[in-house]
């Protein structure tokens, strides 16, 4: 599964009844600008629906990218 597919899966889960969505990032070792754009959309939609999105197993390098683009506060990390 690509990073974008993973995020799309997360977006799809936002339509369900769960109050929290967990995305497993443990297989993501690099993230590109497209994925960052998708994550921004995911965060915005989750905010709108008051659903928490948690990222599990985020690699340090990817976490640093999310920090630099200021996406860290918009997710929780496991």
């Amino acid at each position, binding site marked *: 599964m690509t990073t974008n597919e993973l995020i799309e899966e997360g977006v799809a889960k936002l339509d369900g009844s769960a109050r929290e969505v967990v995305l497993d990032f443990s297989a993501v070792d690099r993230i590109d*600008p*497209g994925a960052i754009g998708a994550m921004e959309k995911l965060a915005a939609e989750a905010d709108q629906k008051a659903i928490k999105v948690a990222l599990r197993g985020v690699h340090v390098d990817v976490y*640093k990218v999310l920090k630099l683009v200021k996406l860290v506060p918009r997710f929780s990390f496991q």
Partner: protein
Amino acid sequence: MPRENIAPPTKERIAYLDGLVGQARTAAAVFTQYTQADVDRIVKQMVLAGLPQAQRLARLAVEETRLGVMEDKAIKNMVAMEFVYNYVRDKRTVGPIRECEENGLVEVAEPIGVIFSLTPITNPTSTILFKCVMAIKTRNAMVFSPHPSAWRCCAEAMRIMYQAAVKHGAPEGVFTCVEAPTLEDNAYLMKHPDVRLVDATGGRGASRAAYSSGKPALGVGSGNTPVYLEKTADLDMAVVDIITSKTFDNGTICASEQTVVIDDEIYDRALKKFADLGVHICNEAETELLGHTVIDPVKKQMQPMAVGQKATDIARMIGLKVKPHTKLLIAPIKGVGPAYPLSVEKLFPVLAVCRTNSVDEALKLCIDVNHAGGLGHTAVIFSRDDEIIRQFSEAMNAGRIIVNSPGAIGALGGVYNDLVPTFSFGCGTGGGNSTMDNVNVYHYLNIKRVARRTPAHMWFRIPDQIYFDMKAVEHLRDFPSRSTLIITNAALEQMGHVNIVRRSIPPQTLVRVLAIPDAEPEVKVVMQGVETLNSYAVDQIVALGGGSVIDAAKIMKLKYEFPEADLEELAAPFLDIRKRVVRFPTQKTNHARLIAISTTSGTGSEVTPFAVLTDKARGRKVTLADYSLSPDVAIVDPQFVMSMPKGLTADTGIDCLTHALEAGVSTHASVYTDANAMQAIRLVFKYLPIAYENPRDEEARGMMHNAACIAALAFSNASVGVNHALAHAYGARFGVAHGRANALMLPHVVAYNASMPTKFRPSPNQRAYVAPKKYAMIADLLGLGGHTVDEKVANLVTAIEQLFDQLAVPRSIADLGISKEEFERAVPELAEIAFDDPSCRSNPRLPLIGELVDLFWKAYHGRCPAQVAGAPAEPEVEVCV
């Protein structure tokens, strides 16, 4: 319009600019994941994509800017690709970039992020190509704002780089370019919160704006290159180089030559050579005309209309008749400054020349040019005289001093020399810039330094030879000497000790005796001794006595061998003997061997690198410390201590114990010093009471004499601690003998060091606060019992007090007859003196002044409660016993 009055862009424009920065920010973040191999691959492909476009981009630049020469711009574009790539290809710019095993430092590259980059009209496409390579090599994203009259060709150069970069894996958005940029755009972007660095290549205005943006900035600016054409120069080469450089791209490179100062001897020949090679030499009227037209008479700056134009076009502009293929206009001027308009920067093929009659005058004229807008930039000299080149390089404030080469192309680096290739010339503070370097990859990186703990190297330094046990003095016959001075005191002479020593000295030696007062040496006594040493041209000193005599001999030897040694300066405080400000001298005027024979069993001065001098005028003791003070030979012969009185036996024995205990817990303690310290402690507890009670007991005397020496070997290398600092301070003030002064502090200091420090002392060699554990080990060594560290330390303190009781040592400072009022008056200053004492520097606890005051009062009242509260849990400590 002043930049502070620039209006903000419209909302739509702000959205556009934010979009550019946003893309760059995402790209920069993504870029942090890239490896060195990733960026190197991308950079190579960008350069391969750019090289074939060099000529097309040059043509676009000339068409858009109407400046310069297409052929030259094509070369500049090639240099920006090929030469710059050649320089950076093997440079590490990702992750660890340099490792230095010697000092444990590793430098790690961290990208900057989003860089907002201004590029100039004069070198538009080449600067863009250069900066694109810099950005990718360093994993940064760049938002370009080219000069408004060059943005199309710059956007095209950037597009070529961007497409190649993204095609080979660079993150999208890594380069963006502001379309039709304005001052308002630039002002907004310079302060944009996501811009991490402003990188302004261009005129002084752009550079100033960058530095006043409030952001970290790499602003580089204009120059005014002086050239000294000196009489020894290779004139043919110089003339061709100057023409090549000054006409290159019609003089648009800011490092190009502006005013040539020519020695009188070669002036006419030089001008003729210029003329022969297609240069028009202006007459006086033409020079004046040029000065009034191509230089703005108010601003005293070049007129924009002339920048980057051909010499023939400039001539036509002002109605000057020149030959059709004239390359350059040379205008002879008579000086530099406002009265000579052509002495400023001219980014077009007009060159000022100035005749000079001497090197001195030439250098002054070059300084004038340098200071007329060229500070920090570039200076050029043509000469074969190395001394004049040296003088020139010292006189010029220029980041690039180009020797026997063209200024413009020389300064670019990598063509005529090994300067770092660049299209951004840092001009240092003279030019109002943050760097004087040729800007390149390392200016676009944050360099992190990983500093591993590097414990200081330890040592164990002792005299070359130590002779010990009864009759060891007979080894004196092994040391030939022409003239020997025995330094001693009158009492030892009367006791016959001096005669014993005399008998052991080889008979052919001329022996004299100097008896000094039996007290810690004063400067006056030392200087009298030095006079004696000089008058007898002594080559061997035998110091026979206690610590005072041996210390005096050490300082006499120092002043004898190094008459210029300044004792006051050498006593300057220091934290680390290896980094001390004042170094002991090494070039000896005289040579003398120092043999030290101790007649007490305490100070160990016969092996130590210390000497204490009494400064009567200031009421204090001055400690000199340096291994050059150590005696060359030590003789530890107990026959000289057999008759020590009981009081002296006790005081000196306690001094020895203090040395060992303080060395044992010192921050400079090592397994080598521990071995000596622990053995000395064991010997003191076993033999001191015997030597005290039975002074004629040879074994006890011998062992105490050895204990004093080996404790001194320990503290010579581990130093002592706060006990000595306190004892030095109040001992000097109240005239208390050193051993006794130590004794009254010792139980309190052990308890103090064993308790939880208020402040830990910075000490790379200490892996934990080990003092309590080491005291506990000493207690174990002495078989004092106890189960916990606290109990063992308490037992040690009790054992020390019991030992003192056996030795009938007074137990408080008050017992010495010092009134409370007198002590109270003295204590604040004594605490400060003690804090400054070098002994304090190796105490395991960093003492606070208030704590020193407390210790003084505890010692004043006497009797130490053998309690140690809050000793920290300690790891295992390796101690040699």
